[in-house]
């Protein structure tokens, strides 16, 4: 198990290194790095100072190491627009995006798994079939359009929920979260459902096909022949088998919706990383783009690592060296 961990960590480092080279190449190979990292409106003296500090006057490979050193210290240049360190901006916005993504994932899992099990057990009933068609419909829906329609119906026409923005936040272990206040919840619910529709559809289909693939297997027959109650057969024998791939997919989907949150955040004006990156792309605020990229790569690496570890913990065949 430890060897496995060490090997995965090494792989992580390698990928991070490759990503840093790619980002470096992307930033410096495309256009003048001076333009990328230094505000074009800075005075000549400021420009020179920054060039010195970021080592832009040294040979390319030296520049890479300066870049790396700076990156590790969190120094990636100041945002052109906000004139503050880019990294700080991204990190400030991280909790909001995480909160949104976590809530969406929770909705997807808590609603999706029961529905998927039902559809898998009774695929030929009207309800079962409508769950499956409904799930296909769900992930065909363009997220941003659904978001707009939700605002239209629930906020504008019915006036039940606020239109955009994040609600009141309170501090929880040093991070500001908004799901602990009623006002926060009201603001959270529409974007969370909006972002959660796609993973919901995926979880339903995955659970359903998992159930359908597991039911005919011999050990299920054996469980029934033992005289176990059907409820136990489904909830223990079937579920534990399908949970392993489902958990893996859910973990990877979390990374996907962290990225896709960009869309929901734009529609609902949710103050997270996503909105920041879109604005930065449009305004050509390159340090923020670079910072976003590196932070995102790091987060995805961590998520992939956690998923791998989780998988090996859950599947006893992997954990105890059977496979």
């Amino acid at each position, binding site marked *: 198990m430890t060897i496995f961990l060490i090997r995965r960590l090494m792989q992580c480092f390698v990928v991070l290194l490759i990503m840093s080279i790619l980002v470096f190449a992307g930033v410096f190979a495309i256009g003048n790095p001076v333009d990328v990292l230094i505000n074009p409106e800075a005075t000549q003296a400021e420009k020179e100072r920054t060039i010195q500090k970021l080592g832009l006057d040294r040979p390319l490979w030296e520049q890479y190491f300066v870049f790396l050193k700076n990156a590790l210290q969190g120094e990636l240049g100041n945002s052109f627009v906000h004139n503050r360190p880019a990294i700080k901006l991204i990190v400030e916005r991280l909790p909001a995006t995480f909160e949104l993504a976590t809530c969406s994932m929770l909705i997807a899992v808590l609603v999706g798994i029961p529905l998927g099990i039902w559809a898998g057990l009774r695929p030929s009933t009207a309800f079962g079939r409508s769950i499956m068609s409904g799930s296909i419909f769900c992930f065909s829906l363009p997220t941003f359009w659904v978001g707009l329609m939700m605002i239209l119906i629930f906020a504008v026409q019915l006036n039940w929920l606020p239109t955009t923005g994040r609600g009141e936040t309170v501090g929880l272990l040093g991070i500001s979260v908004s799901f602990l206040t009623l006002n926060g919840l009201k603001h959270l619910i529409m974007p969370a459902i909006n972002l959660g529709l796609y993973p919901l559809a995926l979880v339903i289909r995955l659970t359903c096909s998992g159930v359908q693939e597991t039911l005919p297997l011999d050990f299920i027959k054996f469980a029934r022949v033992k005289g176990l109650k059907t409820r136990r057969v489904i909830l223990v024998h079937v579920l534990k088998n399908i949970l392993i791939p489902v958990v893996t997919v859910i973990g990877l989907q979390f990374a996907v919706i962290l990225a*896709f949150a*960009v869309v929901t955040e734009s529609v609902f004006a949710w103050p997270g990383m996503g909105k920041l990156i879109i604005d930065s792309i449009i305004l050509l605020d390159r340090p923020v783009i670079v910072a976003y990229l590196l932070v995102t790569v790091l987060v995805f690496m961590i998520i992939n690592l956690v998923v791998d570890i989780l998988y090996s913990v859950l599947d006893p065949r992997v954990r105890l060296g059977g496979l």
Partner: protein
Amino acid sequence: MASAIAETPFHRHVSDFMESKVAVCSFFVLCLVITIALFGPWLSPQNPYDLAQINILDAKLPPGSEGISGRTYWLGTDAQGRDLLSAILYGLRISLVVGVTSGSLALAVGALLGIIGAQVGGKVDALIMRTVDLFLGFPSFLIALILLAVLGRGVEKVIIALLMSQWANFARIARGTAVVEREKEYIDAVRCLALPRRRIVFRHLLPNCLPPLIVVATVNVAFAITLEASLSFLGVGLPITEPSLGLLISNGYEYILSGKYWISFFPGLALLIPIASINLVADQLRNVLNPRLQR
């Protein structure tokens, strides 16, 4: 009892496919949508991008209303007075063309690389697969977004971005299937005939790797359309000169709050219909082509 007519696999697939009424319906809807999109410019009552044909006084009219010149705007007008129906027809075309092109290119590039890797093996295979792993570690949306941030706006750039975000999936599946097929006896038989490698790959290996790829390709085209629409909505996708449905929807964003829903609603519906049909068709295709479910 057993049929006396010899059935080709194709016939069998088609009759299996027709077992799902939903899928057959979706297929016809899809064909309808594609036809409408192809003939869009000739079908639409107005060219919404010809400034001479639009009238700013007709702006923001609800669906079904009559304009200044006596023309009926079936789906209403947008902020510039453009007929929404026409704008949708033009936009549908662009959205579908971009989606299908990038999906097909991703399929071609990915499948080719995957099969080459499987067939050649060794360092080439390792290199291709490590690159695939790298790409697959990141959500396609992010890859497309960052590429567009670097490349800027433009149709070719969007197609390239979509291609890069999707090829890896095809490569992985193609390679996996090719590796399995490669071990099968008919490949040995063909190799014994000393056919050139290229012929083995194209004439024998490729057709047998196609079924899983076709299913994934169909779903991916739907995904490419959604991806492009999302990117255009956010303002980083297609430029204003190629107004896809995503752009139309984003144009209507600011009018949601004042209740002028139709500017965003109808383009979204026009986007939803082809995507949903493709997905429903792909789902049934998957059931039909899945060897594990063969009866």
